[in-house]
């Protein structure tokens, strides 16, 4: 029973729950046993809230029995990145500085999932404060790729991608500041969506870089991701940067195919640095689109080569300020100290790991007197240029397609010693964050030699998630069901 249940995707499980063929309790127990059996190796979860999940499942079953099911997510076991605040449940952002912290409120996205009846299994591993591309910056434990335990699942939403790939949860929420949903989704062979900036509320999500952070779903299929996005998207008055435009209907036209779509292929995304095996799979996906009746259009994003540089000024600058609140005064870690200065410096020195420290240093420098114009301000202007590139491209195409990452998942430890090399893993994803555009990663096969998943990235017009999802679904359908990773078999 458990194995059959776990083989269902989210929408299939939802159908089974609606038909009364399975109960939320059964699904939840299946997920909990799966976590129990695999997570010692994978390390996707920082915290499993089994009791709470069982109670939520029982409540969902009780609603179903009354005929009062709240909708397609009612009773579905999900999990969220430990960057989302959960009332009464420890929330750490993967950092020692928040170890043991139990927030007094739920993030808006979490509250929306709960309101939809979802069962939350626990909190997922991540790079500390979402800073990283491999999940190796978690202060608590590394997370491993279910396809190959020697490799990273990507980051920073490594746990969110690994949990879906290892079939520990039917869907998860992650956050994406420079590729933190799309890169791990690509590395773990799952679907990951970074919506338009402002599409999903950031309220209650531990902030990394406020003008770039965006919440999004990870799931096994495009349809599952669309369903999850539907549940969390939409204006939230508590986040003034959340858009007041109504959320689209992400499922209505999902199956309408790719015929007639104009797919932009940016020439700058296929240059040196893109690993040939990855390129082969990406080109194959593009060919499939042509076969499906889409038209490939060459476009140019001339400023995308400056994206990483601009990003590594803007994101650390905002982070240095966002992380100032972790000062040992009101919550979280406080180092023993004789004086106030010592309390600050000691708390932050022992509470933050190397990557947050590095970024705080970089960001503080970029904002400090005399450097603001040369660094932060210039980077924000380059951001405008990057956005204009996309605006121009979208005159000729409906979506932009290319690789998510230059390589498949790399090995643990491989890039740890050289931060700059790690940063370059995000070279194709960062542009969408800087331009505030929606992007997603959809699996497009395994690397011919390394037998690791490769993801195709699609980037769309602002708030046009529906077209992105429809295009991704067309490819998914054409490819047939993806293989499951060893850890899920």
């Amino acid at each position, binding site marked *: 029973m458990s194995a059959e249940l776990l083989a269902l995707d989210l929408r299939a499980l939802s159908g089974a729950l609606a038909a009364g063929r399975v109960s939320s309790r059964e699904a939840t127990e299946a997920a909990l046993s799966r976590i129990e059996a695999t997570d010692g190796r994978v390390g996707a979860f920082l915290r499993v809230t089994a009791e709470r999940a069982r109670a939520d499942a029982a409540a969902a079953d009780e609603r179903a029995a009354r005929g009062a099911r709240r909708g397609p997510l009612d009773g579905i076991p999900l999990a969220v990145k430990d960057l989302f605040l959960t009332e009464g449940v420890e929330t750490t952002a993967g950092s020692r500085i928040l170890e043991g912290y139990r*927030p007094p409120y739920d993030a808006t996205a979490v509250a929306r999932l709960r309101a939809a009846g979802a069962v939350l299994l626990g909190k997922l591993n991540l790079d500390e404060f979402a800073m990283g591309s491999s999940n190796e910056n978690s202060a608590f434990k590394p997370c491993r790729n279910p396809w190959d335990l020697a490799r990273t699942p990507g980051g920073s939403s490594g746990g969110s991608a690994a949990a879906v790939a290892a079939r520990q949860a039917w869907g998860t929420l992650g956050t994406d500041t420079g590729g933190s949903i799309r890169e791990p989704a690509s590395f773990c062979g799952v679907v990951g969506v970074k919506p338009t900036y402002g599409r999903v509320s950031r*309220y209650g999500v531990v*902030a990394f*870089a406020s003008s770039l952070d965006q919440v999004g779903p990870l799931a096994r299929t495009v349809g599952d991701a669309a369903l999850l996005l539907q549940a969390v998207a939409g204006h939230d008055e508590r986040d003034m940067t959340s858009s007041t435009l109504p959320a689209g209907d992400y499922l209505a036209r999902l199956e309408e195919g790719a015929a007639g779509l104009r797919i932009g292929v940016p020439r700058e995304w296929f240059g040196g640095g893109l690993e040939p095996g990855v390129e082969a799979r990406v080109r194959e996906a593009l060919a499939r689109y042509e076969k499906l009746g889409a038209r490939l259009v060459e476009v140019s994003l001339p400023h995308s080569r400056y994206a990483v540089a601009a990003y590594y000024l803007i994101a650390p600058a*905002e982070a240095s*300020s966002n*992380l100032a*609140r972790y000062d040992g005064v*009101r919550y979280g870690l406080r180092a023993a100290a004789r004086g106030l200065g010592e309390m600050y410096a000691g708390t932050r020195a022992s509470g933050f790991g190397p990557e947050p420290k590095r970024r705080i240093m970089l960001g503080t420098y970029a904002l400090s007197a005399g450097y603001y114009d040369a660094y932060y301000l210039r980077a924000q202007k380059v951001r405008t240029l990057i956005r204009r590139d996309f605006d121009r491209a979208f005159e000729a195409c409906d979506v932009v397609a290319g690789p998510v990452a230059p390589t498949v998942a790399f090995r643990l430890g491989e890039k740890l010693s050289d931060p700059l090399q790690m940063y370059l893993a995000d070279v194709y994803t960062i542009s969408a964050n800087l331009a505030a555009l929606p992007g997603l990663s959809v699996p497009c096969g395994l690397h011919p030699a390394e037998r690791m998943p490769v993801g195709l990235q699609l980037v769309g017009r602002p708030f046009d998630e529906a077209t992105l999802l429809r295009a991704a679904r067309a490819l998914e359908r054409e490819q047939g069901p993806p293989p499951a990773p060893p850890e899920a078999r």
Partner: protein
Amino acid sequence: MPLADFDVVLGLEVHAQLLTRSKIFCGCSTAFGAEPNAHTCPVCLALPGALPWLNREVVEMAVRAGLALGCAIQPTSVFARKNYFYPDLPKGYQISQYERPICLGGAVEFDLGGEERRVRLTRIHMEEDAGKNLHDLAADGSSGVDLNRAGVPLLEIVSEPELRSVDEAVEYLKALRAVLVALGVNDGNLEEGSFRCDANVSVKPRGAARLGQRCEIKNMNSFRFLRQAVEFEVRRQVEVIEAGGKVEQETRLFDPARGETRAMRSKEEAHDYRYFPEPDLPPVRVDPALVAAARAALPELPRARARRYQERLGLPAADAGLIAGEPEVARFFDAALEASGKGAEAARRIANWLNGDVARLANESGLAPRDWRLSPGALAELVGLIEAGTVGGPGAKQVLEECFRSGASPAAVVREKGLAQVSDAAAIDAVVERVLAASPAEVERYRAGNAKLLGFFVGQVMKEMKGKGNPAVVNAAVKKKLGGP
């Protein structure tokens, strides 16, 4: 060089707390006096994940203040983060405005020694207040942090450095305060810190073109302290220069107990606030329609009011300024005048009472006009009783004190305390005759030409009548009985 050979240059930064019900970025109450941290939420505690949510009323109040002070209201302004660490600053940054404030330019106008002065403003911006550090809270000297005030909205109003004396600074502040209070955006309370002022002070040799190095003085919560602090600071800077030294740019704290300023230890490190645009808040757009509506709804401002009192009611400039400068008093004055149903003559009397005995009683009791038990109608009634001759000067003073204390109506007080003035000629004549009969020697001297003695007889009569005699009638009666000197 003596002190007189130096020019003083002052610029003032006023922080005025806005009279909103809730904080600038969250719905917590701005009320004072609750136990520490009672008025807090995830936003003003800077919990992880919390985001600011701008209070519309703050923007509207800033627009009102800007319009009243003649500023250019900016259609787009931007909040910025000012980054520094302090226990009372929970986010590690203050949300303020930096490069693009909501108001630019403008001026504060006031009179100084009978001359009209106009001091230009650099800007006005919106920002959040910090919390409060509670010093020596624990026995070991540890401090406490109370975040009830964190996030209370402030307007920062920055003047150009063109004030030339402490007197000018005080008049500037009084005028600015009057405008904000008249607009209903600030309560004008210096002691409780809802109207705070920092001063940038520098000195330069008389006539020199270049400004001297300035020091920022904080913690002056009364006009008296401002005076003391600036005077001390000017002397200090002159002494430093006289001794061949250089004034260091620094932040200095006024110590009211010693009447001195001293360098702040906690702010020694260079100011590097790393300002950048607040990414959590979109730019603030001020619609021209909102500006037009706010302009149309502006109340009469203190300077215009004072001018009206002078021109229409004939009040002397000083009296008009005193009343108009305290918007609550001005409203009281207007209400009393209306209740009297009379014009300029009553206005002068009402103004005299307000600036005289009423001001004294208010001062002694420490009550603001809104808390007076004396109503505008009662003051008008009292003035009416005086004009009608029902009560005389000394009696009226007693009546006022009683009304101010109890809220009773003046007519009732006159009746109950028997303070009515006696104008009855026959009754007064009888007293006059008694007094003259009792002082034959003085009568003799008066008739011999000592006219000054008239006052003596009048005084005796009034004394006999316990102050209730109508002075005009008594005077006439005494003169008549004595005959010409």
